[in-house]
């Protein structure tokens, strides 16, 4: 079990995770940015 958890990701896995995180942040920023902007504007 412990050995399984200690498995360190390969450089490719690290690249994939970094890229996924970056694009998730960009997409979420756009997505929630628009919605939050809407709500902020609405509350004024």
């Amino acid at each position: 079990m412990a050995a399984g958890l200690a498995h360190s990701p390969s450089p490719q896995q690290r690249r994939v995770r970094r890229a996924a995180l970056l694009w998730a942040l960009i997409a979420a920023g756009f997505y929630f940015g628009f919605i939050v902007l809407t709500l902020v504007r609405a509350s004024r």
Partner: protein
Amino acid sequence: MAEPLAHAVSHATEDHKPHGWRRWVYSTNHKDIGTMYLIFSCTMFFIGGGAAMLIRLELFKPGLQFFDPQFFNSLTTMHALIMIFGAVMPGWTGLANWMIPMQLGAPDMALPRLNNLSFWILPFAFTLLIGSFFVPGGAPAGGWTMYPPLVLQTGAAFPMLIFSIHLMGASSILGAINVIVTIMNMRAPSITLLRMPLFVWTWLITAYLLIAVMPVLAGAVTMLLTDHFFGTTFFTAAGGGDPVMFQHIFWFFGHPEVYILILPAFGIVSEIIPTFSRKPLFGYEAMVYATASIAFLSFIVWAHHMFTVGMPLAAQLFFMLTTMLIAVPTGVKVFNWTATMWKGSLSFEPPMLFALAFLFLFTIGGFSGLMLAIVPADYQYQDTYFVVAHFHYVLVPGAIFGMMAGVYYWLPKWTGHMYDMKLGTWHFWLSTIFVNVLFFPQHFLGLAGMPRRIPDYAVQFTDWNMVSSIGGFGFGLSQFLFVILIWKCVHGGEPAGNRAWEGAHGLEWELTSPPPFHSWTEPPSDAVIARGAEH
């Protein structure tokens, strides 16, 4: 000693494929998820097509035949939403799932669990959307464009519409992230960006478009939601809002969306024409740059959808000229496809037939688009059947034929069987003849002044409406041949070789047909790439 060795051998060859419903519900395999996307897309194609048949039935004769106008408007609205978000977009994602890892020498999509999530969001989204037929007030009837203030009159279906759009958007964005991360990080080492197949390129650009514009749609529909339920007045003139602002925001999403629907078809046609011409694609790099140019231009043309709403002359000129500019990269593509065929050794199997029909008929849709781009002419065409004819030429013999061409091209690879060529050829000719009988007369109706989105019309429009409806029924019925062909191919047929088509190039043809459950567990060697990845 012998036992562990036997164990190791069996591990090396077995697929580790889960069985029963778990295989599909918990799937993280790109091929299984691709298959689910394609089945979902096909189901939605028939549901949306059913709505289209009802529309054509009502329009067969003048006068109200079967439906009250409210229900008719629900049919047109739901037909569009189901076809765009349920049939075409998931269809492309299904093909992307199947083909991108195989074409890039990758074992799977980069984010397999996210892939599962992005698929399984869709059945919930469409249950909500289609379920809106059964709530008080009926399904949304204000058009797929959801213009306020009309859309704010929707009954209990309104929040269902908004929530289902949010879900579809989330699914598309997650799918797009997966495609980008896969393409940028999972390519076999020597497949550089400019050695990628065109289908992968067009999908990469589509994925960027999706991430850029789906949030805009989400923002727009959230504003509608707050206007409806929380007393805001974003789009209500009485409270200082501006209904036209919604149209600007919507079409800032809506025009790139058109290219989201069509760019992957460009990629598929760019794979098929070289294969059946037995020649490399003419101008590979020009095709890549043309695709990127089209995507860029798609962000600065949105207001051509609203010339008649009223805007300054300078804005009309700007949007007219940028729209016309799109003809340049599109022309590059049409030229390059034609030049690829020039002096090629052509053969006309079903994928090539559909690709050629795409080339001719999409170009007709492109030309009528140019006519609509001309501001003074648009004042006549706006909101008539001419517009309906235009975008159906782009989307049916464009996007749908492109998708069918892709299915006909890769079906032997997916199933390991060749399909019934005669049935495929019948499907092609019936579809092509009937699609023209269906949509070409709508140009005449529009030019004669028949408005769109009406259940009844003046008697002078009767003849061409009858012709159009006959074309519609013929086209709808022809599609059952496609389902029969796929069913037969999945269940048997002549074995397809690894390279199912003589002139096919690309890494996917280096795998067995059907490919193993986990393809490219080791990156392909340079020799395999050199053999397979030529354009």
